[in-house]
């Protein structure tokens, strides 16, 4: 038990140190396209939350859309 825990700690630590040494393959100066507003996931927060509410009020599913809100779901 103790040995396996040590192994996990050592391997985990090495992986994290390795992750620290990862050189970003997309450099900051290459991110102009990703910074374009058209690449935003949710450019207009009110509109996105409103449409999520429209769907949640009429469907059996919910969640994983990034919306926090309330109401009975009748509207």
């Amino acid at each position, binding site marked *: 038990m103790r040995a396996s825990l040590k192994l996990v700690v050592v391997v985990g630590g090495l992986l994290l140190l390795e992750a620290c040494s990862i050189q970003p393959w997309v450099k900051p100066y290459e991110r102009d396209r990703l910074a374009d507003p058209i690449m935003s996931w949710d450019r207009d927060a009110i509109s996105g939350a*409103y449409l999520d509410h429209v769907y949640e009020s009429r469907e059996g599913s919910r969640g994983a859309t990034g919306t*926090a809100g309330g109401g009975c779901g009748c509207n």
Partner: protein
Amino acid sequence: MTLVPRHLSRLAALAALSLICVAGAAVLPDDRADLFYSTYKGGGMDITGESVLVRKKFSENFAVEANYFVDKVSGASIDVLSQASVIKDERKQKSLSVDYIHDKTQYNVSYTNSTERDYISNTTHASLSQDMFGDLTTVSLGFTYSHNTVGENNGTANAPVISWLGHATSRSFEGGVSQIVTRNLIAGVTVEVITDQGLLSNPYRSIRFLDPLVPLGYSLGTQVYPNTHTSTAVETRAKYYLPYRAAASVSYRYFSDTWGIRANTIELDYTQPVSNKWIFEGRVRHYSQNAATFYSDLFPFAGSQNFEARDQNLAASTNNTFDGKVTYAFAPEGFLIFKRATASFDVTRITFKYSDFRNIKYYNDTPAGGGYQPGTEPLYAFDAMVYQFYISMFF
């Protein structure tokens, strides 16, 4: 030293190592103010929504957002049509959200109050996100707690008499990863588990069961729901920057819950800017779900099983969305204190089809039930049109 503290100290060391990767700083989005108006028409319901949102940075690492939303409902959905009453209601939602950035970590806390005359909801949300690995990866974690007070209007639309029936609480745990894949592609995955407890049924919706003693052949009764509900949703998505300055995205969500519902959602979006003044967007979405295990359109008799529901949200259904949106920058270079101002118009058409929820709007016809035997009525379907218009000003 015992094993446990040593274990914890090593975990702490691991956590510290993970933070060593952090360098540089995240950035809060621009200040903005939005004025929003929407209309929804479909399924016998007319809903108008009005909203104001203001977001302001008080320093480079601290921002506050306030939102006020009012929607007004009138009309009669298929549920209340079958019970000879109409809806007239107003929902007011106020929310306050605070963002704080420290280095590459963004913290968010928000509080939302939503009040209708027969439903009060208070929601508290806290989340954090962390940029790591050269800012290529953002990991986020969130928790939401909601406390709801559920009532029923036993009066009329204009002279309400509210009976408070009980409470429901909801806890949501959310985690997500967003990853820059190439200089043109970003992808992400989000998982959310929500667990509810309390009064979970909609008091305005009823079951129906065969009743040979009445001319209609069926009667309506009270729904009985489990008082717990847990759901899991997983969404994956990707967005690609096309070579000619346009963006295309795809997302897929899988949903399952302890009530037996399984649902799939797929969505495609396309965004096309034209000059620095126009942005055109198109979106299609397809959704399908099966029915909850305790759902039935027509029960053989009241109390035929422990839990009984005939809420259309729990029925097997599909819906399809077609959405078009145009955004016009009427002040692309800004004016007064504003850096930029835009006006957006969005038209959405959603077609809903149910495969085991029948349209019983003929209940008051002659002959009884419009001549339909119980369980042979047409399946319910309706189209909804949603219009949104809003002005956004960035400063």
